């Protein structure tokens, strides 16, 4: 089946997630959609599979305009989507899960279905036990199940969203050969990924998205450097990183191993010096968020130590880390950062040091909030509930809530969703903190941000951690390739004694 996107637009608030995307995909093709996080890949695919509706634009199937109102509609048109997190029902058997989407009929034809299931999986060389429980399957096996189910429901187009995350090399090979087989049969495969290698191996043609825009289409064979450039854009240097005295070590992790299924990271050895900014680069879900959380007591490491100002805080709680001057700003501001429903003043009251007072000194906190609003140029009043602030102002508020004397600040996507001015403002404030002696550990998906503000960089790819790179000696292309999983020979760091004094 041929698929056409005609001038698809989709906004989420201020974010233009898809801007006038026009693409046409021929049947029998494995078509790649490449782009960094937030480029608009998933949005486009969710529109095709009926999960969300475009603001404007049209989808054409075999040149007929269609409107796909929901996922059930999509499967009627023959479009099946395989999600990044397989959407199945774990406490069920494989075969029960398989039968679930069946159309019509009050009784389930269990026996026939079982036979059809076995026939179907034989074609692909899958060997799933129909009686096994879904929660006992690996991510790769769940994927296989989902592919079979979608095909059985009559899918002629398969959309796969980052399917190679968290599966073994063997399963990947099986998956790829199955996809190639399907394409030969005339099915259309859309393969969404940020992994250059996978796309290069598999796709006949690839479209590159960046910040909601279609950058271009490229046919196989590919030039990796060209793809990286299209994905991340040309590098623009904004000033040079300032160097602050960086001898003293504020924070140290030793042989740290962190695990959260299906990722396992480490052992990582790293020292963060006073006043230093270290960027953690990598696609989302490559393990950098796990490492950051382990550094602040929100995730218990499997092994190793976390040392703050020469004090071993391994296995201590987040609150104890906070007391020792470590602070953490999560990416999801209204989920973990701020409390929706509380005003700015209430936030400053809750985070006060005056812990043992019973009554709230309201004039005091009103005044303090006013001062902070002015200092951090937050557009809002003391009585404004945080959820009605704009994203940039929420981030300013979160920053203004940090205690004055901190030794380590950990940030997740500090400028995500912020406009240019707010982003530059954030970093000016953070750099001030560095001058006061704080060290910063931050995650970002924006490579320019990583290169511009970091002193050193750690790159993550599928749970692997690189040795620290000097930001001033790293190019955007180099970083882009590492993030996409290329050029890792000799890069992986298990034990890097870097800058030990």
């Amino acid at each position: 089946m041929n698929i056409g996107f005609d001038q698809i637009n989709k906004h989420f608030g201020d974010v233009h997630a898809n801007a006038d995307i026009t693409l046409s995909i021929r049947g029998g093709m494995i078509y790649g959609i490449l782009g960094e996080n937030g480029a608009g890949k998933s949005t486009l695919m969710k529109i095709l599979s009926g999960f969300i509706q475009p603001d404007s634009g049209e989808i054409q199937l075999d040149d007929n305009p269609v409107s796909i109102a929901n996922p059930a509609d999509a499967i009627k048109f023959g479009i099946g989507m395989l999600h990044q997190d397989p959407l199945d029902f774990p406490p069920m058997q494989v075969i029960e899960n398989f039968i679930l989407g069946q159309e019509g009929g009050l009784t389930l034809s269990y026996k026939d279905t079982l036979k059809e299931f076995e026939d179907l999986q034989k074609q692909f060389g899958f060997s799933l036990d129909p009686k096994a429980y879904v929660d006992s399957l690996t991510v790769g096996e769940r994927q296989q199940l989902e592919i079979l189910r979608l095909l059985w429901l009559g899918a002629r187009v398969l959309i796969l969203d980052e399917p190679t995350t968290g599966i073994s090399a063997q399963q990947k090979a099986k998956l790829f050969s199955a996809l190639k087989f399907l394409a030969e049969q005339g099915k259309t495969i859309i393969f969404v990924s940020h992994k250059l290698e996978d796309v290069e191996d598999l796709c006949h043609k690839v479209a590159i998205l960046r910040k909601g825009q279609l950058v271009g289409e490229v046919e196989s064979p590919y030039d990796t450097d060209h793809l990286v450039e299209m994905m991340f854009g040309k590098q623009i240097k904004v000033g040079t990183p300032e160097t602050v005295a960086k001898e003293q070590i504020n924070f140290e992790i030793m042989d740290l191993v962190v695990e959260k299924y299906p990722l396992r990271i480490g052992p990582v050895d790293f020292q963060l010096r006073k006043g230093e900014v270290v960027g953690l680069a990598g696609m989302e879900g490559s393990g950098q968020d796990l490492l950051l959380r382990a550094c602040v007591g929100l995730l218990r490491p499997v092994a190793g130590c976390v040392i703050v100002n020469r004090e071993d805080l391994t296995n201590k709680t987040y609150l104890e880390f906070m007391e020792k001057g470590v602070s953490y700003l999560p990416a999801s501001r209204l989920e973990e950062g701020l409390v929706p429903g509380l005003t700015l003043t209430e936030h400053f009251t809750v985070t006060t040091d005056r812990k043992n007072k019973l009554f709230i000194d309201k004039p005091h906190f009103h005044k303090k909030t006013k001062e902070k609003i002015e200092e951090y140029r937050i557009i809002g009043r003391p009585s404004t509930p945080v959820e009605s602030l704009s994203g940039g102002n929420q981030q300013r508020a979160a920053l203004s809530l940090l205690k004055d004397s901190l030794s380590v600040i950990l940030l997740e996507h500090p400028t995500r969703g912020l406009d240019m001015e707010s982003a530059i403002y954030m970093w000016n404030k953070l750099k001030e903190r560095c001058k006061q002696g704080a060290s910063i550990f931050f995650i970002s998906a924006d490579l320019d941000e990583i290169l511009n503000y970091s002193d050193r960089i750690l790159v993550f790819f599928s749970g692997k951690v690189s040795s620290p790179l000097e930001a001033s000696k790293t190019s955007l292309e180099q970083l882009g390739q590492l993030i996409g999983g290329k050029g890792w020979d000799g890069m992986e760091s298990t034990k890097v004694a870097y800058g030990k004094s």
Partner: protein
Amino acid sequence: MEKVKQQGLSILFQVGGLILALLFVTLILVVIDTNPLDVFRLIWEGATGSMTRITNIFVVWAPLVLVTCGLLVTFTAGLWNIGIEGQITLGAIFATGIIRMFLDTSVPPAFVILISIMGGMVGGAIWAALPGILKTYGGVNEIFGGLGLNFIATALNIGLIFGAWSRPGVASMSGTEPFPPAYALPTLPSYNLSWYSIILAVISLVIIFFLLQGTHLGLRLKAIGKRMKSAYRLGIPTRKYMMLSFIICGLFAGLTGALQVVAVYHRLIPSISSGYGYLGLMIAMLINYQAIWIAPIALFFAALNISGIQLPIVLKLDSSLTGVLQGSLVLFILLMQGVKQRVLGKK
């Protein structure tokens, strides 16, 4: 201007809910072939017909206010303390046990009453700490924990009434042997109402109002209730505060149970909690967790409780009809809140 309009709309929807609830009850009455006007007249008379009835309303009002005060603390922290019934029962058991210990001693009865009330509060707090521990350290939802503990509390209560504390001679559903009058809180002459209960209820209202409005504790509980993850990330020890909110609620529930013994029944009876815990949950939901509304809404519910007593005698209707009215009131008002949000959200 916009705010005033919003509030006006809010009240409109609340009144709409009230009218729907009345219509619903009317419909039921029509279906069972009873004249609704007769019923509503009887309910009104049942509540206000005599001084005894009016004072009886306040006998119910005081415990309703006390439990609702406690429940607002747990609700503020985002917790559903459905175990409140068991906590009331344990308060009553502790109070009874303490009075029994001192019955044949020379300790002044006034002092015994005081420590039995305090003991009752401790009992309620212990019973509330259990679902708290299960929730914060065991990951058991407080609704399940509380429900289980309610059954255990009831069983314990019945066990004591028919076993260890049974009346000499024959154990009976009417409860344990009544205490001598000296061990009861004084009541208004010839009525059942004790001033002490009213005073304690009013003090509790004031405490809860200021706790939730003006203290660091109240604000932290609110932050936890609104978004626990963020609250923790901002440095609030969420487990500790959740435990604390359970314990505070338990203190109020225990006080309620103790007063049921020393001010109302003067003994332990099987249904000592009188369902006030569940009614308190309904009131808390109805007032949208705002302390300022506890007193009037609890009064309304108490009046409905008392007014139902006339129904079986005159119209041969079960007195639980007023319970239907209470329940449908909560349902319809919550429903209207949902409708309001949909209407406003669509704009």
